[in-house]
């Protein structure tokens, strides 16, 4: 049809026609070529990652850092455990000593306040004192009088919290009003309160002596182990530094040699070669290090054994009887359960330590595993960088699921309403308004998330009547749920339009047939139209998912950017934790890394995976539509 019309109306030569044709074809091919170039570029930058990361992991192993981590990783839990014991102690102490402390603090606060109020008079008084005796005699009585009046006024004016009894308040005012330097009356009440606090504190601590001891035991238990370990760590770090230096020099030398080979001028060539020779470095000899590791291995194993025995012992003798507060109880019980696990994890490291070999090769498989299943994304570390993909993937996926779970019912229901129930006039404004959401720049939505939705969520979560919701009250304003809400808003227009199209595509013949069989409008909608449009709506959801996973600005601003696998122990409440995402990490870090480094390449790998995910989601959506395509009416 089209070609015939072009031919009919365009009476140019065959050449012109061919030019026009190739102009159109050119536009299509430019797009395809650009796409291919993007893929090529991504792959080129990312492909080096496996090699670089492998080299880094090899250094990590050869220099003994891995050996240290075998112990260090499980040992990290010890601080958490001690911390929760300390929290149990402080929350148990609080009700016993809180009052006494508050009383003392109130008295001290009042003294400071009176001091501040009388500052000027005090300074005048001090100046008068500093004067030569003759002048002082004249000025001093005046200043003393002024100061005394000011003190009286101030101590009468300060507001005393009801935590101090009326008598104490009166005493305190009296004592504070007589604080003229040089002739101070002792502040008896403050001293008394302080003494009382110390007594109460001592008594309370005595009641929880067992717990106190347990904390001290746990804190001191790994001292020997840590000492040996830090010795090892220092050695390892020094070795790593040497290895890195050697690698950098070697790389520079290779570059110089290459330049020399390409140089035309023999003089320049000689200079380059000389320079290369100068930067020659011997690969560091690690045999000494390895000997030291071997030497320290058995002492380390002994320390581990001793430490885990102590931990096990402690787990059996946690002084539960003293604790009464429910939250302290819970903390203590959790710790009691965690301690044997911790000891077991420590013991499990022993065989690993024994099997560990510095020169074991790092397989490509394990490099891939370290990337795709790595649980740590750790960069600019003084110890070792890790590029583990899981924290980012989990953040992206959870946020996308939240967004889709919210956007799907909304957009599908809106599409059904708009397509089936709305009057033509309603339809005329509903559709453009929903589609307008797309026009909101994502950075503006990010704003709304930070300034409005975040505060709103936090305030809501503190309402006592909503405390049954898991995860409430929330700790972070910026979290995955917040980001998910905004992304849902962004996905709605796409999903709404596509779902509406799907409903529109249901052949009129089905609707006629259903109505001719005596169906009501609702029956027709839910038994014929919606089922027939289901595949189209599924595709709409998938394309919405693609949009949500690829979105960057909102998640960067609103998701909270904490790089860690969320803690699923809180079931659904996990959504109120902050997270980082695949897209966010690229946007945030790409500008700050040196080109070509492992970190740079890792970000490109993330880009490639992101690209693959989007591609897969799109392909799925297309397949879904094709698989369930309705007969053409």
């Amino acid at each position, binding site marked *: 049809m089209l070609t015939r019309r072009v031919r009919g109306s365009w009476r140019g030569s065959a050449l012109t026609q061919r030019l026009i044709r190739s102009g159109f074809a050119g536009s299509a091919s430019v797009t395809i070529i650009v796409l291919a170039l993007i893929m090529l570029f991504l792959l080129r930058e990312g492909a080096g990652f496996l090699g670089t990361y492998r080299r880094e992991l090899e250094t990590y192993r050869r220099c003994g850092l891995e050996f240290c981590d075998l112990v260090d990783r499980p040992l990290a839990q010890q601080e958490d455990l001690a911390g929760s014991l300390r929290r149990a102690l402080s929350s148990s102490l609080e009700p016993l000593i809180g009052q006494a402390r508050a009383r003392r603090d109130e008295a001290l606060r009042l003294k400071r306040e009176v001091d501040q109020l009388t500052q000027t008079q005090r300074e005048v008084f001090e100046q008068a004192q500093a004067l030569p005796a003759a002048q002082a005699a004249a000025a001093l009585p005046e200043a003393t009088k002024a100061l005394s009046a000011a003190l009286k006024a101030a101590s009468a004016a300060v507001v005393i919290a009801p935590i101090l009894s009326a008598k104490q308040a009166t005493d305190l005012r009296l004592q504070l009003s007589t604080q003229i330097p040089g002739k101070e009356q002792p502040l008896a009440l403050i001293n008394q309160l302080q003494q009382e606090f110390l007594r109460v504190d001592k008594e309370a601590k005595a009641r929880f002596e067992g717990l106190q001891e347990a904390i001290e035991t746990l804190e001191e238990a790994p001292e020997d182990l840590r000492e040996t370990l830090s010795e090892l760590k220092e050695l390892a770090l020094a070795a790593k530094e040497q290895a890195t230096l050697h690698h950098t020099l070697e790389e520079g030398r290779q570059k110089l040699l290459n330049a020399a080979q390409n140089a035309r001028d023999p003089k320049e060539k000689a200079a380059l070669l000389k320079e290369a020779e100068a930067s020659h470095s011997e690969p560091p000899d690690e045999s000494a290090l390895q000997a030291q590791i071997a030497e320290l291995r058995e002492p380390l194993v002994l320390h581990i054994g001793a430490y885990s025995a102590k931990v096990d012992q402690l787990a059996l003798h946690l002084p539960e009887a003293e604790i009464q507060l429910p939250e302290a109880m819970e903390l203590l019980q959790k710790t009691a359960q965690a301690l044997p696990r911790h000891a077991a994890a420590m013991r499990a490291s022993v065989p690993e330590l024994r099997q560990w070999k510095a020169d074991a090769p790092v397989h490509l498989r394990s490099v891939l595993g370290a990337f795709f299943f790595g649980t740590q994304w750790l960069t600019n570390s003084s110890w070792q960088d890790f590029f583990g993909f899981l924290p980012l993937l989990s953040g992206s996926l959870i946020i996308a699921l939240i967004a889709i779970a919210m956007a799907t019912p909304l957009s599908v229901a809106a599409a059904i309403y708009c397509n089936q129930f709305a009057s033509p006039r309603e339809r005329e404004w509903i559709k453009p308004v929903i589609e307008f959401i797309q026009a909101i720049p994502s950075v503006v939505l990010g704003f709304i998330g930070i300034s409005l939705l975040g505060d709103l969520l936090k305030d809501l979560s503190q309402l006592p009547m909503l405390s049954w919701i898991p995860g409430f009250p929330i700790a972070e304003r910026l979290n995955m749920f917040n980001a998910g809400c905004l992304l849902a808003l962004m996905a709605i227009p796409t999903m709404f339009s596509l779902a509406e199209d799907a409903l529109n595509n249901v*052949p009129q*013949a*089905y609707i*006629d*047939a*259903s*109505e*001719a*069989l*005596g*169906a*009501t409008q609702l*029956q027709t909608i839910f*038994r*014929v139209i919606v*089922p*027939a449009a289901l595949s189209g709506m599924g595709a709409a959801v998938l394309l919405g998912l693609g949009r949500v996973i690829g979105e960057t600005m909102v998640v960067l601003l609103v998701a909270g950017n904490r790089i860690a696998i969320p803690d699923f122990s809180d079931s659904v409440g996990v959504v109120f934790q902050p997270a980082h995402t695949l897209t966010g990490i690229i946007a945030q870090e790409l500008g700050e890394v040196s080109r070509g480094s492992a970190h740079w390449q890792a970000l490109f790998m993330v880009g490639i995976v992101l690209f693959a995910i989007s591609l897969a989601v799109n392909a799925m959506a297309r397949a879904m539509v094709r698989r369930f395509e*309705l*007969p053409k*009416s």
Partner: protein
Amino acid sequence: MPDSRSTDPDADFISVRDFSYAYGSTQVLHGINLSIHRRRITALIGPSGCGKSTLLRAINRINDLVEGAAPVSGSIHIDGVNIYDPAVDVIALRRNVGMVFQKYNPFPRSIYENTVYGLRLAGITDRAQLDEAAEQSLRLAALWDEVKDRLDEMATSLSGGQQQRLCIARAVALRPRVLLMDEPCAALDPIATARIEDLIAQLRDRFSFVIVTHNMEQAKRLSDRTAFLYRGKLIEEGDTLDIFGNPAQPLTEQYVTGRLV
């Protein structure tokens, strides 16, 4: 005419009186008067755009949802009930007046589900009752033997003729009193057409058929009575033999002999 109405209620089962119909401002039917007999096959013939489909679709009010479509004047009574009376339940009307469309349109579900769709709409959930109705309807539509072993297959896996017979089964499952057919064989090949025609002939004493057709041979073969419409007006109605053999109006004669376009 008034006489025959009073003496034989069957002859005036569906009674169209001075019926005019319009889509918005375009009037497409002008003062139609037509009696459709009980348990007879009535064919509506006429050139494209003459309003025969509109008349057919007015009988079960399927055009109600089309923007602006409404009768202008006159009435249609079925068995004495004015179907355009506001008190009439359209859903009940459509259960009593089944319809089969030009292009077979089974739902994209199983053969079984298609057959019992109308019954499910009516709220019947008893499996035994549905099974029995499905079998009976498929037998009535002469489809049972072909599909009894694959009731759970998609209806769209059937051939075109089978799909159209499935649509007939779906319509008769509700035991309507009237079956409206809008060119039921237009999308079918001659063999499938012959089977549908046989089927309609077998069912003639169970339902009152109104069939719109372009195919004059089909009208001649199938129908007991024929009505000829031209430009929204009823030109002539009568026994099929008379209309084709001895038409009273010159227009009718021109049309049935193929000289009127």
